[in-house]
């Protein structure tokens, strides 16, 4: 099909059939539509430059350029549709893939990403991000949580308690994301829930990004005395981002309940047949 769509009665996600990338998310319940372009990018890690000898390392995030490079401009896609689940499998490169998944009756989109082993034979350390670009007017503001408790407003190149002299345009605007990050234009809200603590930011209006993996070749000389470089072939990492598009008025109710279910996830245990009655006595 020329139009690639997965949908249930609550959400519709449309993909660009030429590139295989996510193009639009619609909340069918609330009649909200948002063009969303999501893809994977990587920052080239600084090994020190004229301004500072500081290299990107285990402690320090210091990309050499403000603009990240795309892992790929398009994804090879496979569509899976059954009555319980609809999935778009996106393969960006030999080391980056993603499944965008929508279950029956689910009010959020699930993005299961797999990144790694990050290739470093080109001698460039890489810090890989998943970025969502939207036309939303966010006025340089975004929101992140602090240990799943208080949601804090973050502003571009700004600190609420002192006058900031911003020297790192990317890293200086990165914040910890423990369970969620969101952007809003006052009417609609795009929330991304994480399954682990990650770094995140919004470096452009309407944009939102999360760092998913990094592999570096130089020690940042902050005490570890090792570059952030796994031995052998390197690590492959898999995680999930849960995406909610909703009106601002009911966004909190949705992301709070979903985050609780994600953090306190149901535990699955299997048992073969052949049980015998058991009493604690």
């Amino acid at each position, binding site marked *: 099909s020329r139009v690639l769509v997965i949908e249930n009665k609550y959400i519709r996600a449309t993909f660009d059939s030429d590139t295989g990338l996510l193009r639009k998310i619609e909340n069918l319940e609330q009649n909200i539509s948002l063009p969303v372009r999501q893809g994977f990018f990587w920052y080239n890690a600084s090994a020190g430059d004229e301004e500072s000898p500081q290299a990107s390392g285990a402690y320090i995030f210091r990309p050499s350029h403000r603009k990240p490079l795309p892992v790929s401009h398009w994804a090879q896609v*496979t569509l899976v549709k*059954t009555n319980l689940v609809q999935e778009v499998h996106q393969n960006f490169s030999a080391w980056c893939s993603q499944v965008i998944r929508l279950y029956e009756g689910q009010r959020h989109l699930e993005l299961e990403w797999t990144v790694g082993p990050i290739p470093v034979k080109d001698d460039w350390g890489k810090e890989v991000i998943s970025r969502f670009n939207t036309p939303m007017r966010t006025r340089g503001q975004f929101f992140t949580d602090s240990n799943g408790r208080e949601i804090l407003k973050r502003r571009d190149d700004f600190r609420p308690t002192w006058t900031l002299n911003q020297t790192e345009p990317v890293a200086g605007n990165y914040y910890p994301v423990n369970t969620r990050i969101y952007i809003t234009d006052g009417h609609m809200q795009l929330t991304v829930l994480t399954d682990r603590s990650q770094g995140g930011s919004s470096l452009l209006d309407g944009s939102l990004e999360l760092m998913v993996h990094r592999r570096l070749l130089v020690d940042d000389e902050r005490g570890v005395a090792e570059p952030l470089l796994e031995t052998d072939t390197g690590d492959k990492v898999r995680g999930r981002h849960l995406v909610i598009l909703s009106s601002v008025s009911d966004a909190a109710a949705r992301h709070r309940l979903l985050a609780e279910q994600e953090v306190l996830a149901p535990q699955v245990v299997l048992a073969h047949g052949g*049980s015998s009655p058991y009493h604690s006595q």
Partner: protein
Amino acid sequence: SGDSAPLNEAMAVLQHHDAVTGTARQNVVNDYAKQLAAGWGPCEVLVSNALARLSLYKQNFSFCREINISICPASQTSEHFRVIIYNPVGRKVDLMVRLPVSEGIFLVKDPNDRRISSNVVMVPSAYSKTYQWELLFPASVPALGFSIYSVNKMSGHNHQAHNLTARPKKSK
């Protein structure tokens, strides 16, 4: 006997920022992983004991430690098994259960012994060079409680999944 203390202690050690953010030497990172794995072993016994006491049945419980990478020997090699789902949240939770299985058609029954809808879908080609399958079915678990679903393999081939799953396009 089960014991949650080793996992409790490992988790306490892992509160250090080095463990949370990865700002540690590789051998320290390896040790964090070792402590977690060593702590989880006796915890599995503890959970098994609790489940036996709550369900009033003693069984050999299996835990899928590598389910995030679609590996679970118990579900991949068994033709009949039960799935016990515990919900630690204080309200009813609906979820979609995904389990790696061998190719086939499966019959899934809910705690009331009623047949429920299930699918077998192919995992992404990027996950594995060989065809791999996952069984998925909707489950509902009460607040702070558990539900038991039963799974039976009906045949060795999954015609539905073959027909519904698109093949990846050749690389341009």
